[in-house]
C-alpha cells in the first residue's frame, strides 16, 4: 500500500484513497463541503485545496488519489490558508448570514469553517447580495424545505438522490451565479430517505419540516441510541432538550445503516409525545369480577400484588412478549416465566411496510417487522415452548392464540410485557380478548386501552429513558444508551423486573441492564463471549449455530424497496 506524508506525518493507505480520507487517518482535517464518502467526487467546492510537492497549483484533496509512494502533502502552509480564506469569502459573499433565524446555526459548515479558516470582515460592501426571490421556503417534498438563498451549490443533495436512493428527483438548474437546486418538473422529493439530504446539507439550505424551528441545535443534548421503527435497528442519535425529544438523526454504522435512516424512522419519536403515558402503578381492587375500580398505588404494593398472584398460581400463566422489549428485559421476563413454571411465552410478529436502507459494499438492509427486537426477545427467553431452558410439549398459548384466539380465557394470569406490544394493543377486540384472563398484568410506557383494562398496570420507561440492547434483522446485537431519565414514578423495565424477581430470589436484586446482559451472555449460547462493557459501539453479530432458522428473516431478505 502506498505511503503518503501529510504535514510531516506519514501514513500507509489503500491505493486510490483520496487525500481528505488519508489526512483524516493522521488526524489532519482538510475542510470540505462537496465531498462525502458515499457520494461521487466532484471537486467543486474547492475548500479542500492542498499543496502537493512538485505540483505548480494547489490541488483539490478530494479528487487527488494516493496512487504511489512518496506524495508529500501540506495543509499548513500560508498558500493553502490563503486559498481557504478566499473560498470562505466567496461562500459568504451571497450568503444571507441569517444565522439568528436559521435552523442550521450551531451545526453549520459555513459557521464552523468561517471560525477556523475565514476572515472576520467583509469586502463585499457596495454590491447587492444575489437572492432568489420567492425561493426562500420551497417544499421539495413532504419533509424537506429549501431556502435557495443559503445554498452553496455543493450538490451533495443532488448526488444523494442520484447515487444513493437512485430516485433522481433533484437537479442543478440554471448556471453561473444563478445556479440553483430544485426538483425536476412533476417530481417531489418524497423517497423513503428524503430527509437524509437535510443531514448531508452542510448549510441551512435544506431543512427538515419536522424539526424546523423546533429547537436551537446548541440547546440539544445528544445520546447514541437505536431507532425502534423497524427491525433494521438503525443507529441514531436521540436529540432532546430536558427530556423532550426534538429529532432523531442517523449515526454512522457501516454494517447497519451506513450514514442514513428512513423518514419513517425519524418520525417514530412522535409516538412518545402523542401517546398518553402510563405514569403511576395502578392496581385493581379485589373482587368485582374485573370491574372494580383501579387505583394508583405505590411500586411496592403493585409488585407485591403481582408476586403474590404469580407465586400462588399453580394454573396457567401466560406471557405475551413484545419486540419492543430490550434483550435484558426479555431475559428477566423469561426468568419470571421460569419461576412461574410457564412455557406459554411468545413474542408477536408485527409486519408492517418494509423499510430499506442502502449500504456501501453490502446489499441493502431491509426490515418489515415493526418492532426492533423480536429476535432478541425470543433468544433471551421468550421463545414459545421453552421453560427453564427445556423445551416443553403440549398445547402452548402463543401470541397468535392470545391476540387473535381465545387463549386468554384459559389463563389464570396473563402478563403483557408491553402495553404497546404492537398496533393490536389499540384494537378494542384484542383488548377484550386479552381481558378474559383472570388476572391481567400489563407493563408498558403507553397508557393504552389495554393498560387501562389491566388489573395491575406498571409504568416502565420508553427506550429513550433506558439502556439496553436490541438484536436486529441480521442478528446483530447493538447497545443503546439512556438519553434522559424517566420522569416521576416511571422506572426502567430492568429495574422493575429486578425488583419483582428479588421477591422470589434475592440474587435478582438491584440489577443493572449491564449486569443482566452479562448473565444472559453467560447462559444463552447465542450471546456467548459478549459482555456489556466490551460490546463494540457498532454492535456484534450473534453466534447463531444451532439456533433454528428464522422464517421471517428469510421472507424479508434484502432486495425489496430501494435498489
Amino acid at each position, binding site marked *: 500500500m502506498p505511503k503518503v506524508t501529510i504535514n510531516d506525518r506519514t501514513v500507509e493507505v489503500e491505493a486510490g484513497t483520496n487525500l481528505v480520507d488519508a489526512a483524516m487517518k493522521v488526524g489532519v482535517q482538510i475542510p470540505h463541503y462537496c465531498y462525502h464518502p458515499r457520494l461521487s467526487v466532484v471537486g467543486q467546492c474547492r475548500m479542500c485545496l492542498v499543496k502537493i510537492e512538485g505540483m505548480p497549483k494547489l490541488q483539490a484533496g478530494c479528487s487527488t488519489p494516493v496512487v504511489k509512494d512518496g506524495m508529500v502533502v501540506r495543509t499548513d502552509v500560508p498558500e493553502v490558508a490563503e486559498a481557504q480564506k478566499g473560498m470562505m469569502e466567496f461562500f459568504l*459573499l451571497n450568503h444571507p448570514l441569517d444565522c439568528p433565524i436559521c435552523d442550521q446555526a450551531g451545526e453549520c459548515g459555513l459557521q464552523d469553517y468561517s471560525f477556523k479558516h475565514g476572515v472576520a470582515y467583509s469586502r463585499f460592501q457596495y*454590491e447587492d447580495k444575489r437572492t432568489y426571490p420567492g425561493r426562500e421556503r420551497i417544499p421539495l417534498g413532504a419533509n424537506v424545505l429549501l431556502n435557495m438563498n443559503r445554498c452553496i451549490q455543493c450538490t451533495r443533495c443532488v448526488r444523494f438522490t442520484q447515487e444513493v436512493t437512485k430516485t433522481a428527483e433533484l437537479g442543478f438548474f440554471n448556471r453561473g451565479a444563478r445556479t440553483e437546486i430544485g426538483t425536476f418538473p412533476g417530481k417531489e422529493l418524497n423517497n423513503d430517505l428524503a430527509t437524509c439530504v437535510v443531514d448531508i446539507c452542510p448549510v441551512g439550505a435544506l431543512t427538515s419540516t419536522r424539526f424546523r424551528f423546533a429547537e436551537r441545535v446548541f440547546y440539544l443534548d445528544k445520546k447514541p441510541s437505536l431507532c425502534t421503527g423497524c427491525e433494521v435497528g438503525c443507529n441514531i442519535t436521540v436529540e432532546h432538550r430536558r427530556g423532550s425529544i426534538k429529532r432523531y438523526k442517523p449515526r454512522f454504522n457501516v454494517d447497519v445503516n451506513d450514514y442514513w435512516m428512513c423518514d419513517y424512522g425519524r418520525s417514530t419519536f412522535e409516538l412518545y409525545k402523542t401517546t398518553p403515558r402510563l405514569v403511576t402503578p395502578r392496581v385493581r381492587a379485589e373482587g368485582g369480577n374485573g370491574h372494580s375500580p383501579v387505583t394508583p398505588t405505590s411500586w411496592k404494593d403493585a409488585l407485591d400484588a403481582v408476586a403474590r398472584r404469580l407465586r400462588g398460581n399453580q394454573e396457567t400463566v401466560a406471557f405475551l412478549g413484545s419486540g419492543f422489549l430490550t434483550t435484558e428485559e426479555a431475559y428477566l421476563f423469561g426468568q419470571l416465566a421460569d419461576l412461574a413454571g410457564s412455557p406459554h411465552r411468545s413474542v408477536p410478529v408485527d409486519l408492517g411496510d418494509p423499510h430499506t436502507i442502502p449500504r456501501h459494499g453490502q446489499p441493502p438492509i431491509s426490515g418489515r417487522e415493526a418492532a426492533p427486537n423480536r429476535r432478541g426477545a425470543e433468544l433471551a427467553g421468550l421463545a414459545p415452548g421453552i421453560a427453564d431452558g427445556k423445551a416443553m410439549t403440549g398445547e402452548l398459548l402463543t401470541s397468535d392464540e392470545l391476540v387473535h384466539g381465545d387463549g386468554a380465557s384459559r389463563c389464570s394470569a396473563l402478563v403483557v410485557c408491553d402495553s404497546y406490544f404492537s398496533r393490536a394493543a389499540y384494537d378494542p377486540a384484542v383488548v377484550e380478548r386479552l381481558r378474559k384472563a383472570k388476572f391481567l398484568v400489563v407493563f408498558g410506557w403507553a397508557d393504552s386501552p389495554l393498560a387501562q383494562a389491566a388489573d395491575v398496570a406498571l409504568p416502565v420507561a420508553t427506550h429513550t429513558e433506558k439502556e439496553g440492547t436490541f438484536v436486529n434483522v441480521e442478528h446483530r446485537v447493538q447497545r443503546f444508551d439512556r438519553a434522559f431519565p424517566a420522569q416521576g414514578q416511571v422506572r426502567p423495565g430492568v429495574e422493575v423486573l429486578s425488583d419483582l424477581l428479588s421477591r422470589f430470589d434475592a440474587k435478582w436484586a438491584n440489577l443493572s441492564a449491564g449486569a443482566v446482559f452479562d448473565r444472559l451472555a453467560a447462559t444463552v449460547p447465542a450471546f456467548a463471549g459478549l459482555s456489556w462493557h466490551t460490546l463494540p459501539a457498532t454492535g456484534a453479530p450473534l453466534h447463531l449455530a444451532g439456533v433454528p432458522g428464522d422464517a421471517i428473516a428469510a421472507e424479508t431478505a434484502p432486495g425489496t424497496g430501494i435498489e
Partner: protein
Amino acid sequence: MAAFEPVLTRNVGKPEALSVRGYRQGGGYEGLAKSLKMEPDAVIEEVKKSGLRGRGGAGFSAGLKWSFIPKGKDKPKYLVCNADESEPGTFKDRLLMEHDPHQLIEGCAICCWAVSAATCYIYIRGEYTQAAATLERALKEAYEQGILGDSVMGSGFKLDMYVHRGAGAYICGEETGMLESLEGKRGQPRVKPPFPAVVGAFGSPTVINNVETLCNVPHIIVRGADWYKGIGTDERNTGPKLYAISGHVERPGTYEYPIGVTFRELLDGAGGMWKGRTLKAFIPGGASAPILKADQIDIKMDFDTVAKAGSMLGSAAVIVMDETTCMVRSVARLSKFFNHESCGQCTPCREGTNWMELVLKRLEHGEGTERDAQLLLSICKNIGGNSLCALGDAAIGPVKSLVDRFPEEIHQHVRDRACPFPKQRYFSNGA
C-alpha cells in the same frame, strides 16, 4: 509579407470545394488516402514531428495528445472535434467549416485512423446553423462517395462521423464540459484527472481537437512535416495560423498568415486602424487573453512570444481597441461574459466572476473606490489556479491586465466619479 500561399483557407471563396468532387480537384482527400497506407503510429509520428500545436487555445502538441490514447481494443475510442467556437472575438473555425467542410472531415478521418477511433463527433456551437448545415451536407456526400462509413476509401477501416449541435454554452467548449454535453448531461466540466485520453466520451479514451488543428493535418500528411516546420517562427511555433481580427480596424475578418507574423503586419493586412485612429490596446488571443498595450505593436504573434509578453495567443482572436475605448468598460463587458458563462459548479468561478463583474460595473459607473484595484487583484488571486476548469483562469486574464497595465484609467474613474470616455451603451439593457 512575401507571398505566402494560403494553406487552410485556400478553398475559401471557391463554392465548388463544398462538393467532394470539387474538393478533390484541389488535391483534397489525398492526405487521407496517403495516411491510410501508413501505419497509424507513423501518422502520429509525422504530426508530432510537424510541431503542430492545438489551435483551440492551450497550444498543446497535437501529436503528443494522440499518442496518449492507449493502444488495444478493449474499449472503443472516440475523436471529438471541438467546433464550439464561442469565445468573444473568435470566428476562425466558422470560416473553415462554412467554406471548406471536407478539409475538416479529412482531418478528422486521418486523426481517427491514427488513434484507431471508429466514431467521430463534431461538436458544433449551436448558433452556427449555417456551418452545421454545410457540414451535414458534406458528411452526407462523404458517406455517399465512400469516404466515410464501413470502409473508408475502400481501406476496410470503419468510421462514422456525426455533427452534434450544442445549445449555446461557452463552457461546452471546455473539453470535459463538451463530453458531458455530448453524453446528454448538463454541460459542466469534469474533475481531471482522469484526462479524456484515458476516460473521455462514454468512459472511453477520447481525443479532443480544435477544428483548425484538424484542418492542418491533411496538409502535414500530404506535404510532410518538414515542409510544415518551414512555416512559422521556430521549432515550437510552426505552420499556418488563422487570425480572427475584430474591433477598431478597417477590414475585420479572418486572415491566414504563417504563425509568428507581427501584430503590425496583421493590423496593416486588415486595413489599419478604423478611421485612422490611434491604437490603444489589443487582445491577442480571445476574450480570456490579458490585454496588451499599444507599445507591443511589433510583437510576434506566436504561442511563446505572446506568452512571454504576459498574455497568450489562445485562439488568435485579435481584438483591436483605439484611443476612444474605455478599458474599464471593455473589461467589465468581458467580465459580464464570463460571469454569464460560468457553469456555476465550482465556488471560485461561480462567485468570483460574479463579484468581479459587479466591482467593474461599479467602477465604470463612477462608484468605485481607490481600493477596488487591489480588491480586483485579490479576487483574481483567489480564482486563479483554484477553479475546477480553465474558465476561472480565463476570466481573470483581462481583469488582471486592466489593473496591471491601465491603473491610471481605474484611478481616473474613481477620481472623476464617472467614466472619462464618451458615453456609449455599456450593457445591452442600457445599464
